[in-house]
């Protein structure tokens, strides 16, 4: 674009915030990666990587992280699409209040969900209490909270609003006349959703989905509050190694892998969804 101003001062202005970001974030991040190849014994080697990659805990954490994030994202996309669809196109009295509630929900921290789920599905919680009251059994059947499924439930609950918000914005811009035209041509609801609404919402869905995928990959609070030994994810492992075991080289290695996984999956997702969406 042809502009009348010289570029040098503009570059200088942009340099200030970039320098701040570099000092407060990029430099520490680089240092962290550097530490991961600099064992305590001195010199530089990938020895710590070998140790970490060889350990069962790490491999389980890696697998858990990816599959929990993928499952949660899928759940969020489906649930978010359905809920947003109802709010936007089958509105009921109070639908706006629900949309507002979704906004508020976004401003609460994630770990509150796990905290609440303990009261609902915990061993002494509502669901099991209800079960024992009704059946007279000694124990309720709900014990999934400390398994990956508990984490997935919490993540779906917490992150679905992140999918709903861009979707509701996109639905708000969809011309109602388009839907009226389609239904006047005899198309039924599922068909309209598939052929009119879904294609229009794909970019918003992709944007929300990629954000949620990254956030799920990086989620720590929910896993921490679950407190289960069985569910270790990469962020959890970083915390364990660094804070509980004070094994900083190993923590740096796990952290580096975690960053690589997050950025890679995010990159793949963006590339794929850009091709699908636009």
């Amino acid at each position: 674009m042809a502009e009348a101003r010289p570029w040098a001062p503009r570059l200088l202005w942009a340099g200030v915030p970039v320098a701040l970001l570099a000092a407060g974030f990029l430099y520490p991040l680089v240092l962290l990666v550097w530490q991961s190849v600099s064992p305590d014994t001195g010199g530089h080697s990938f020895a710590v990587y070998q140790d970490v990659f060889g350990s069962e805990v790490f491999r389980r954490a890696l697998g858990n992280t990816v599959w929990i994030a993928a499952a949660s994202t899928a759940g969020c996309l489906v649930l978010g699409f359905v809920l947003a669809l109802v709010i936007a196109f089958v509105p009921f009295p109070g639908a706006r209040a629900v949309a507002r509630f979704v906004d508020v929900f976004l401003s609460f921290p994630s770990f509150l969900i796990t905290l609440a789920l303990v009261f609902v599905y915990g061993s002494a919680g509502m669901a099991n209490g209800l079960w024992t009251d009704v059946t007279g059994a000694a124990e309720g059947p709900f014990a999934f909270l400390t398994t990956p499924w508990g984490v997935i439930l919490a993540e779906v609950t917490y992150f679905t609003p992140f999918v709903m918000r861009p979707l509701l914005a996109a639905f708000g811009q969809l011309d109602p006349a388009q839907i009226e035209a389609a239904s006047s041509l005899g198309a039924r609801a599922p068909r309209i959703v598939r052929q009119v609404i879904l294609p229009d919402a794909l970019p918003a869905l992709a944007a929300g989905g990629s954000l949620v995928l990254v956030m799920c990959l990086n989620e720590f609070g929910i896993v921490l509050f679950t407190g289960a030994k069985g569910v270790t994810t990469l962020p959890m492992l970083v915390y364990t190694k660094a804070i509980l075991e004070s094994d900083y080289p190993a923590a740096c290695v796990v952290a580096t892998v975690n960053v690589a996984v997050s950025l890679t999956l995010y990159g793949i997702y963006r590339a794929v969804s850009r091709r699908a969406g636009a």
Partner: protein
Amino acid sequence: MLVHSRGGRRAVWALFALLFLPLFALPLLVLVAASFAGHWSGALPSGPTLDHYDAAVRGESLRALTASLATAAAASALALTAGTWAALSAHALGRRARRVMDLLFMLPVAVPSVVAGLALLVAFSKPPVLLNGTRWIVILAHTVLVTAFAHQSVTAALGRLDPAYEQAAASLGARPWYVLWRVRLPLLLPSLGAAAGLCFALSMGELSATMMLYPPDWLPLPVLVFGATDRGSPFTGSALAVVLMGTTLLVLLALSRIRTKASYR
């Protein structure tokens, strides 16, 4: 309207309620209920009490609340300044340079907060800059993490801002600084308010990086909530959580009132 028959609509709404209420409304209700409960072993809580709140607004808890508020206020102010600056200066650059800057400032979102915390720990635990063990490292971490969101919201708002305004101002003889101060920033004010709210809420609830970094004399509220549940007193944790949510909501409400005043449409 998508569904025309009355019955069909009812069925859709029923499905909505069935999904929405247990998933989203129930957890929040349960938290509030638990914060007033003496016990919970069964279908419903029992032994209503205010003891947890009594504990939640004094001593250590009060200190945690102030620490959280101070951290959030400082981090959002810094993040908003840096994010707005970055967005404005990126906006003046060419397409490619702008993309690079957007990518750089989005990085803290893509990198796990725990890792960001560890990175700061690694970088600032030794001279020349020794921040570890002070509250400043917590504030720094929060600032870095929420700057990404501030930058993103301001960038989006800038994209929506009609360039005709600043061009009209320039054609009338206003220098870039004057245009920024008198035209662009006032027009961005509603979006800046929204960004401030987002940053504040995120910082209030930040746990991941904080768990890696907090010094003993600067325990933000989320850390205390975890401490309480970890010790096996989930009811105290709930009361603290309700205080956390309430404070966040109050600040958001105040910000949104300023925002409506500042919007001209």
